[in-house]
C-alpha cells in the first residue's frame, strides 16, 4: 500500500481488515518524520505514546471491537490544541512547560474515531502571523522550497501534510491561518462555519473568529475528517446543534447549475501576481466546463476587512491573553524573592519576557483599541462595520451558492522577506479575513504550480453551514487540477 497517496478510507479499511496494522502505519510516518522533520521544523514535539496508542487500536480490532472511520490514520495536531499529557506550547515561550490534563474536543473526537496523534505541529506564536516566522520554536520551512515560508499561522500543519510526514493534520483559522498555508504548500484546508467545530481546549486567540479544521491531501479526506470533528459540544456554548451532514458520502463532482459568484471588488484591485491570475482564470474555465454558472457580485465592505479584522482580533487577543500571568501554569520570570515584589511588576516582567514581539504588538494594539476614549472609535466601530459586512454577504448568497477567489495575491514568499514590515504582512490577508468576520466556511484547494515549482490554490467561500457546496465545487476542481497528488521532494 502506498501510504503517501492512500486516502483515509483506504488506510482505515486496510487496518480494519488487518491488511496492515495501525502500528505499521504509525511507524511509517514516525520514521518519515524523523528523517524529514529536521529540514522542515514542522513538528515541535512527537507523541512518545503514538505506538502504544496504535497498538491499542490493533488490539481492539483483534478483539472484534468497533473502531471508527479513521482507524490507524496518523494525525499531526497544530500545537494550539490541548493534548492530554502531551506538551502544548502555542508556539510560545510562555507555555514552554505546559502539559494539559485534557484533550481538546477536536483531538478527543479524532482519537475516538481511531486516529493516532503523531505529534504537535509548529505555528506562529499564539497563531499570530502569516509565515510561521514568529514561533518561539523556530521557523518552519516550505517543503516545496525550504527558502520559502510555509505560510501561517498553521505553517507546521501545511508543511507536514505537504511533505507527508503525517497522513492528516489539524489547523486553526482566525483570519486565514488554515487556507493561506494550505495554498502555499499545495494541500486542501477547510475552515468550517463558525460554530461548526468546538473550540474547547484550543488556546484562544480571537474567540469570535477562531475555528479549527482539517488540513489534508484531498477533498475527500477533508470531508471525512470534518465529519468526525464537527458537531455540538456542551463544552463550547458557541457550537451549533445542527446535524452534521455526511460530507464524505454526499461528495460529488456533479456541480451542473451551481451558481458561483466572483467578487467585483477583488477583481478591481489589479493586485494579482500573473501566475496566480492565470491559475485563477483556469479554475473559472474548468468550473464553467463542468456546468457551473458564474455571476458577478458586489461586497463593497470587503475592502475594509483587513483593518476590521486586525482591530477585532487584537482586541479579543488582548483580553484572552490576560490569563498568562505566571501563576497557575506556564512561564514565570526567575524571581529571587517573591516576598518583596509588587503584583503588577510580577505580572509585567513575566509577560514581558514570556511573549514574543508580534504577540506583544497585538496585545498593545488591542489594549489601545479597548481603552477608555478609543473603544467607540476602534473596537465598537469595527464591530458595527462587521455586522454590515455580514449583511452584505447574506444578500450575496441569495444570488449564488459560493464565491470563488484566489487565496492570496501571490504564492509563498521568501523567509525573512516581510517580517520587518507588519503592515505589508497584514495586507497579505485581503482575501481571507472577511470569511472569518462573517463566520462563513472557506477552503483552499490546490490548482496549479508556479514555473519555479510553488503551489497555487483556489479559495471557495460558502454560506453559513453550507460546507457541502464548497466541498463539491472543490472536488470538481480537484478532479481536473494539474497539482493533484503532487508530493514535494525533501532531502
Amino acid at each position, binding site marked *: 500500500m502506498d501510504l503517501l497517496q492512500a486516502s483515509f478510507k483506504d488506510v482505515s479499511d486496510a487496518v480494519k481488515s488487518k491488511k496492515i496494522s495501525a502500528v505499521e502505519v504509525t511507524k511509517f510516518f514516525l520514521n518519515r518524520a524523523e528523517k524529514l522533520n529536521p529540514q522542515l521544523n514542522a513538528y515541535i514535539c512527537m507523541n512518545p505514546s503514538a505506538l502504544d496508542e496504535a497498538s491499542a487500536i490493533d488490539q481492539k480490532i483483534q478483539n472484534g471491537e468497533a473502531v471508527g472511520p479513521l482507524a490507524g490514520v496518523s494525525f499531526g495536531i497544530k500545537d494550539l490544541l490541548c493534548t492530554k499529557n502531551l506538551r502544548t506550547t502555542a508556539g510560545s515561550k510562555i507555555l514552554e*512547560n*505546559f*502539559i494539559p*490534563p*485534557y484533550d481538546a474536543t477536536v483531538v478527543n473526537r479524532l482519537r475516538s474515531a481511531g486516529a493516532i496523534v503523531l505529534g504537535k505541529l509548529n505555528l506562529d506564536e499564539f497563531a499570530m502571523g502569516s509565515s510561521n516566522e514568529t514561533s518561539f520554536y523556530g521557523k518552519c520551512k516550505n517543503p516545496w522550497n525550504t527558502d520559502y515560508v510555509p505560510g501561517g499561522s498553521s505553517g507546521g500543519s501545511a508543511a507536514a501534510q505537504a511533505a507527508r510526514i503525517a497522513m492528516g493534520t489539524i489547523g486553526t483559522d482566525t483570519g486565514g491561518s488554515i487556507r493561506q498555508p494550505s495554498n502555499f504548500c499545495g494541500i486542501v484546508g477547510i475552515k468550517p*462555519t*463558525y*460554530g461548526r467545530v468546538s473550540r474547547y481546549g484550543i488556546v484562544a486567540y480571537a474567540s*469570535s*473568529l477562531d475555528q479549527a479544521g482539517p488540513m489534508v491531501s484531498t477533498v475527500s479526506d477533508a470531508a471525512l475528517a470534518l465529519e468526525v470533528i464537527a458537531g455540538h459540544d*456542551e463544552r463550547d*456554548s*458557541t457550537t*451549533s*446543534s445542527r446535524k452534521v451532514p455526511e460530507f464524505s458520502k454526499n461528495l460529488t463532482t456533479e456541480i451542473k447549475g451551481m451558481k458561483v459568484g466572483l467578487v467585483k471588488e477583488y477583481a478591481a484591485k489589479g493586485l494579482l501576481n500573473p501566475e496566480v491570475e492565470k491559475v485563477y482564470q483556469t479554475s473559472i474555465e474548468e468550473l464553467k466546463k463542468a456546468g457551473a454558472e458564474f455571476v458577478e457580485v458586489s461586497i463593497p465592505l470587503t475592502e475594509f476587512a483587513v*483593518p*476590521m479584522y*486586525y*482591530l477585532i482580533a487584537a482586541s479579543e487577543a*488582548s483580553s484572552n491573553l*490576560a490569563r498568562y500571568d505566571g*501563576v*497557575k*501554569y506556564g*512561564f*514565570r520570570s526567575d524571581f529571587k524573592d*517573591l*516576598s518583596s*515584589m*509588587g*503584583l*503588577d511588576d*510580577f505580572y*509585567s516582567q513575566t*509577560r514581558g519576557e514570556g*511573549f514574543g*514581539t508580534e504577540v*506583544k*504588538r497585538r*496585545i*498593545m*494594539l488591542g489594549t489601545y483599541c479597548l*481603552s477608555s476614549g478609543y473603544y467607540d*472609535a476602534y473596537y*465598537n*466601530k469595527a*464591530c*458595527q*462595520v*462587521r*455586522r*454590515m459586512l*455580514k449583511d452584505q454577504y447574506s444578500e450575496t448568497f441569495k444570488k449564488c451558492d459560493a464565491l470563488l477567489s484566489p487565496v492570496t495575491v501571490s504564492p509563498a514568499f521568501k523567509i525573512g522577506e516581510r517580517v520587518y514590515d*507588519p*503592515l505589508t504582512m*497584514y495586507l497579505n490577508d485581503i482575501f481571507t479575513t472577511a470569511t*472569518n468576520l*462573517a*463566520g462563513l466556511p472557506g477552503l483552499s484547494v490546490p490548482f496549479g504550480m508556479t514555473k519555479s515549482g510553488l503551489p497555487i490554490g483556489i479559495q471557495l467561500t460558502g454560506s*453559513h453551514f453550507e460546507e457541502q457546496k464548497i466541498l463539491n465545487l472543490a472536488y470538481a476542481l480537484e478532479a481536473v487540477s494539474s497539482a493533484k497528488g503532487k508530493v514535494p521532494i525533501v532531502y
Partner: protein
Amino acid sequence: MIDQKTIEQIAKLARLKISSDEALAYGDQLSKVLSHFEQIAKIDTEGVLPLVTPSEIEFFAREDEPRKEYTAAEMVANAPEKAGNLFKVPPVV
C-alpha cells in the same frame, strides 16, 4: 502618531514590561497600522448594532451537576511555584 507616554500607558494597562527600544518600535508601528485602520472611520454606522459573534447561537444550558473530573494535584501540576496544593504568588495584602 502615538507618543511614548501613550505607549507606556498602554504597556502598563496590558501588564507588559517593555524596553525603551521596544516602546519606540511599537509607537512607530502602531501609529502606521492605526492610520491605515482609520479608513473605517469614514463608514456611516449610525444606528448599527455591533456584531460580536458571527453565527446564530441557540442558547443551551446543561444540568448544573457537580462532576469530579480532576484532582487538585492535577490542577496545580503546571504551576511554576506551589506550596502543597496552593499557588505561590507575591504578597497581595
